[in-house]
């Protein structure tokens, strides 16, 4: 049962991710990416990271992608003009190098022997995550607030019409 779920949502995630690239209009790409994010959140549930699955839907699909769709609709974009004036010789280098990278990834994944599972089964409950976040990782957590503040100011500065 779990394997059927895994394969269904894995195929959905890969298909949606490919659809992001295939779509001509970037708005459809963004909507397809939302489908991919929700499929990945189902995979998080299968991995027993319940809280992260909820966060994935709320923050990623709910906030970040809404921001994307909002900007796309705000700009009222023309049609995508892909590959109009790309350098022609790039594909003769890019395709072999890309195939090399893919074969490297496949070879690495093939050869690596996964370590045996250790410890008891883990459930990513909000309590466990909060406990770890506010004890072991409290310094990165605080640094994160600084990052968000800088991003906020940067966004305002960039989007301002005349500084």
């Amino acid at each position, binding site marked *: 049962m779990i394997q059927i779920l895994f394969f269904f949502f894995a195929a959905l995630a890969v298909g949606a991710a490919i659809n992001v690239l295939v779509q001509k209009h970037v708005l459809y790409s963004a909507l397809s990416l939302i489908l991919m994010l929700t499929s990945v959140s189902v995979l*998080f549930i299968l991995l027993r990271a319940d809280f992260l699955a909820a966060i994935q839907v709320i923050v*990623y699909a709910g906030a970040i992608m809404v921001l994307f769709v909002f900007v796309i609709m705000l700009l009222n974009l023309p049609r995508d003009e892909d590959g109009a004036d790309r350098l022609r010789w790039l594909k003769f280098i890019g395709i072999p190098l890309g195939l090399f990278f893919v074969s490297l990834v496949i070879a690495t994944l093939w050869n690596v022997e996964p370590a045996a599972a250790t410890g008891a089964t883990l459930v990513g409950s909000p309590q466990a995550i909060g406990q770890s976040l506010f004890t072991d990782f409290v310094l990165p957590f605080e640094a994160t607030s600084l990052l968000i503040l800088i991003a906020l100011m940067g966004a305002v500065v960039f*989007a301002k019409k005349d500084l």
Partner: protein
Amino acid sequence: MIPVGWYLILGAILFLIGVLGFFLKRNIIALLLSVEIMLNAVNLTFVAFSTQHGQISGQIFVFFVLVVAAAEAAVGLALVIAMFRNRETLNVDRSNLLKW
């Protein structure tokens, strides 16, 4: 129970799709979407390892990746708006003022 290797392979496939989109697409918003795909692939790998080893640290890392993704989206989209206002295009090949 699903072996962790399947999740890793799925994460690798999603990451490759993201890399492919980053190099093939010319629309700057599509580039940002490709980056989001790559970040999600890495998140999936983090959670898979976290579950396999029974340690919560991997899931904490996903939080920080999420925060970075949100900051990147905010700043990136502000840049997109500024670029569109000045150049009337979103094609990254057309914005070549700093190109040597």
